[in-house]
């Protein structure tokens, strides 16, 4: 009546989390974020992907962690920061970044940085 009779899990699988329990907090987060790929928990993982996003602006082009240019053949990225201050006067994050020519990101999450969102 008030009781679950059986629980099966797919993403929260034993294999996924068991391999991650001994890892660092940051690696554990990655275990949850990539549940279908337990190899993300391996601290010895090597490869070409740098799991940090740091766009660089050079002469009209943005480059990502791979050194690839994103803004070619796209409209000029309009700074979200400019728009927000002009229209609303609301809080402005320091982390609005360009991903592609016309795509911004980082517009949510500033308040929650470093604290729990749970209630």
């Amino acid at each position, binding site marked *: 009546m*008030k009781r*679950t009779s059986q629980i099966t899990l*797919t993403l929260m699988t034993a294999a996924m989390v068991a391999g991650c329990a001994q890892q660092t907090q940051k690696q554990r987060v990655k275990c949850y*974020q990539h549940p279908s790929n337990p190899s993300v928990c391996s601290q010895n993982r090597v490869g070409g992907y740098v799991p940090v996003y740091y766009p660089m602006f050079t002469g009209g082009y943005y480059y990502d962690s791979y050194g690839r240019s994103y803004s070619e053949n796209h409209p000029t990225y309009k700074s979200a920061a400019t728009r927000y201050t002009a229209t609303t006067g609301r809080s402005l994050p320091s982390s*609005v970044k360009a991903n592609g020519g016309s795509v911004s990101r*980082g517009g949510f999450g500033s308040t929650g940085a470093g604290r729990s969102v749970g209630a």
Partner: protein
Amino acid sequence: MKRIEHAPRLNWEARVEEKGMLYHTANGVPYWNEEAHYEFNLDQIEELEAATNELQEMCIAAVQHVIDERRFEELAIPEWMIPMILNSWERDDPAIYGRFDFSYDGFNAPKMLEYNADTPTSLVEAGLIQWFWLQDHAPNADQFNSIHEKLVGYWSFLRKYLRGQTLQFVSMDDLEDVATVTYLRDTAEQAGLSTSYISFDQLGFDNDLRRFVVARESAEPQLIDSIFKLYPWEWMAHEAYSDELIETEGKTQWIEPAWKMILSNKGILPILWELYTGHPNLLPSYRDQYMFRADEPLVVKPLLSREGANVSIIDPYGGNHNTSGEYGEEGVIYQAYHPLPDFGGYRPVIGSWVIGQESAGIGIRESAGPITDNFSRFVPHLFY
């Protein structure tokens, strides 16, 4: 209702980890505490279930009242969010969950302390971890817990109302938050939904298409039609994408919906008391302190605080207690002080879950002090 102490399972850390709880210990102190459990009888469980269902109905009526009477200012809801709230309410946008917090001693009626209707956590502990604990500890006992199957069932019900092919999930890069979202994804996928996860730094906005997109650095942006966010509406309303949020209203389907801003706000407590004065599951609550006698113990709660932050107990007889935090600028409410029951120095709060619109089970967090904060510990329960 009893608190019963016992030895934990020998390998309890591994047992909870293998079910997905990697945050069972914080700063060397177990947050998941299975050195005790609470035991209820069936009457008590049915009382909690009935109170939860009745309060949920009252809360829905209170939302309609706030909308009809335009009482948004009392809740410090920004003007620019009101159309989004109204539209999400009119469309009956999908809402999946919420958690009432009760003070309950097993004898007197449960009293609603607040409603965490937007971003409730401890879902993994309540829905999963304590259920598996029961299988090991007392498999013949019962537990008020159908959270998992109700989640799967409700996602299945919502399938026809969700937009797009994939339900996107987004959270901060916090271990508990990501675990909560992963569990919700798990239940959604078991209901037949296709899901995907991003952290907030991968949530983007396409300035040409004027739509929110998944903006991973290694892939082309993908339009988001429906998205579950584990992030409070009141924060989103003041962050940089608030313009885009309003502009895309009706194009991106947000879960929980914007109308949950009304219920996840402590300002709903005085409104509920006004609408249902004297209800046995409510505590007297007001916007003005002078509504209480000077010798009456009361609790001051910010409209938007989280995890017990910035709560003050003003008790002329028992002394005052305060918690620190960063909330309160938006205003406060005053609620009659109803001390948590004391079980040998442990004070439990009953978190009573609503899945869809229905009571689904409980989880218990206990503290040593009178205010349940983020140092509280989760303790499992059972009933016979």
